[in-house]
């Protein structure tokens, strides 16, 4: 039997089956081992799928051998192979980090359940990215969302419960909007296969239900990807969740939602048919620019570093959406590169903060003061991530901002390019806030006793790896830029 042939199904099934197995095992060490094995399998298969797509093009896999459009089809192309690598790669790093960090952040009786939820969340996100079936997207979206609510509620403070509840309400409204939109398209076309939907929608006479479906799906996905002003759930969720969960969510959950938006816009809806009646570029662009400024400006006033990074995420999602709003090859490329680069940068920042929480017990600016002396390496890593958030040359963030500005200038939109640069100045302000605390303030006189709070080698290694990749992808852009260009080309050629 050729295993690679079933890779599309196996990489979702492995973490999905691992979750109930972990609950049955109950032993923490076994739970961890099973989760790592499932995650490693998923990572291995996504790398395999990515290289296979590079050489042979689109891979179509019929689940249970039922031919599409009747059966569920898993479809891997240049776009989602790239997303799968991001999700399973950062998932792997976060999982290896979590073993020691959870010992400080998750109550001991819940620790084995953390891994079950983590596997479910990973399976949901990978499923959303790989499936070619509209209703299947909704089901996987709910799998990942429900497990995310549980993961957020595992935080130490009681605020994490309310953050999870708020996200549950808004996330469910978002998912229900998406399923209403899918229902309307299903009523119009009688199919659930995304490619088939796209072909049949182009033959539909009356456009009004198509607009309604378009509006429902857009609003639902905006809620899930936390586009300003739909971002209300995000700051609390990232702040009060265990740090490993914040890292995983920031790097993957919003990014997969952006992928879903792209999939619907380019594969299902024919933008050529919709844009003449709807100033879509303007609407998305206005929201994106508002997000860039509002997110970054609010970040400046935060006193908790995790909250600061959460608002910075709201701003950075703005840059990704701005690239998408340009609706041409260079804009989409910039958006997709930023999707990846921001994912690893934020993942690295939250993992470094995880080290800080373990050692110093919190992420308030008062904990961080004098970090340059108490934890010089971690402080330096956070500084590098900060520079990448600003977009300083030599970091991953620079590459994506460069391409974004270039894409805007190509279209003659010099004021959009100016907005990107101006909002980056706000990023300088919030990163400076960290620098001031870490390097210009004295460390607190009473450090926590160091014996109980040691960061272990696996935590440090994972944080180091992600931070290094933030720098690496600032120099070697073959993987990121190459994949993003191929994906953008594929999306624009698909309709």
């Amino acid at each position, binding site marked *: 039997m050729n295993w690679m042939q079933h890779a599309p199904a196996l990489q979702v099934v492995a973490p999905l089956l691992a979750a109930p197995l972990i609950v049955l095992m109950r032993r923490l060490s076994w739970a961890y081992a099973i989760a790592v094995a499932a995650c490693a399998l998923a990572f291995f298969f996504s790398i395999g799928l990515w290289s296979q797509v590079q050489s042979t093009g689109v891979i179509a896999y019929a689940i249970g051998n039922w031919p599409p459009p009747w059966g569920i089809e898993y479809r891997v192309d240049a776009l989602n192979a790239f997303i799968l690598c991001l999700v399973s790669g950062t998932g792997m790093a976060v999982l290896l980090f979590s073993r020691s960090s959870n010992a400080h952040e998750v109550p001991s009786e819940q620790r084995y359940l953390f891994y079950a939820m983590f596997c479910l969340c990973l399976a949901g996100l990978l499923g959303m990215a790989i499936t070619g079936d509209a*209703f299947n997207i*909704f*089901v996987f979206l*709910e799998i990942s969302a*429900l497990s995310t*609510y*549980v993961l957020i*509620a595992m935080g130490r403070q*009681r*605020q994490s*419960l*309310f953050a*999870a*509840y708020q996200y*549950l*309400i808004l996330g*469910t*409204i978002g998912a*229900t909007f998406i*399923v*209403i939109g899918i*229902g*309307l398209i*299903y*009523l119009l076309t009688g199919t*659930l296969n995304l490619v088939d939907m796209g072909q049949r929608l182009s033959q539909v006479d009356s456009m009004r239900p198509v607009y309604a479906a378009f509006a429902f799906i857009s609003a639902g996905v905006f809620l899930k990807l936390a586009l300003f002003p739909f971002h209300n759930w995000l700051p609390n969720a990232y702040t009060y969740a265990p740090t490993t969960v914040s890292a995983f969510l920031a790097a993957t959950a919003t990014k997969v939602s952006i992928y879903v938006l792209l999939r619907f816009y380019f594969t299902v809806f024919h933008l050529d048919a919709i844009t003449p009646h709807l100033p879509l570029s303007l609407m998305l662009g206005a929201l994106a620019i508002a997000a860039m400024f509002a997110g970054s400006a609010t970040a400046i006033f935060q*006193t908790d570093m995790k909250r600061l990074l959460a608002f910075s995420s709201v701003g950075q999602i703005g840059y990704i959406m701005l690239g998408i709003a340009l609706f041409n090859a260079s804009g989409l490329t910039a958006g997709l590169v930023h999707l990846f680069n921001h994912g690893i940068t934020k993942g690295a920042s939250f993992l470094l903060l995880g080290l800080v929480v373990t050692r110093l017990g919190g992420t*308030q600016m008062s904990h961080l003061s004098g970090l340059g002396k108490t934890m010089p390496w971690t402080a330096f890593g956070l500084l590098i991530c900060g520079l990448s958030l600003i977009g300083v040359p030599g970091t991953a963030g620079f590459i994506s901002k460069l391409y974004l500005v270039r894409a805007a200038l190509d279209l003659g939109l010099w004021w959009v390019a100016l907005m990107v640069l101006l909002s980056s100045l706000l990023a300088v302000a919030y990163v400076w806030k960290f620098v001031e605390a870490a390097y210009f303030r004295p460390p607190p006189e009473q450090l926590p006793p160091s014996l109980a709070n040691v960061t272990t080698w696996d935590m440090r290694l994972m944080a180091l790896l992600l931070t290094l990749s933030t720098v690496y992808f600032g120099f070697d852009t073959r993987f990121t830029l190459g994949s993003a260009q191929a994906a953008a080309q594929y999306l624009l050629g698909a309709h």
Partner: protein
Amino acid sequence: MNLAAYFTYIATFVLMFLGLFIVMARGNLIKKLVGLGIFQTSVYFLYLGPAKLVGGTAPILSDAFKVYTNPLPHVLMLTAIVVGVATLALGLALVVRLREAYGSIEEDDILAQDQASAGATEAA
């Protein structure tokens, strides 16, 4: 226009707006979940209403049956009901934990307590 012919559509959208309104307008965490449940239920109607043919049977390959109902939307909604149950169960579990932690299930109370404790840590 015959309103009765559009009964299921009207019912669907009335439920949809009612549910969403309750979620937004109520401060009680349980009532919010009730609203969410109504909102999700309206989606079942949206799928099932147009799928049912009066006098339709299950799709059976036989000359005796000419009119049949598409079973797919029903299957989809079975999945959606499961998702709805899971969401509601998790939401209620969170409310139980919130009540243990804050002693209240009113949104305003909880936010006020959070603000008070945030102010206390900043003062300290």
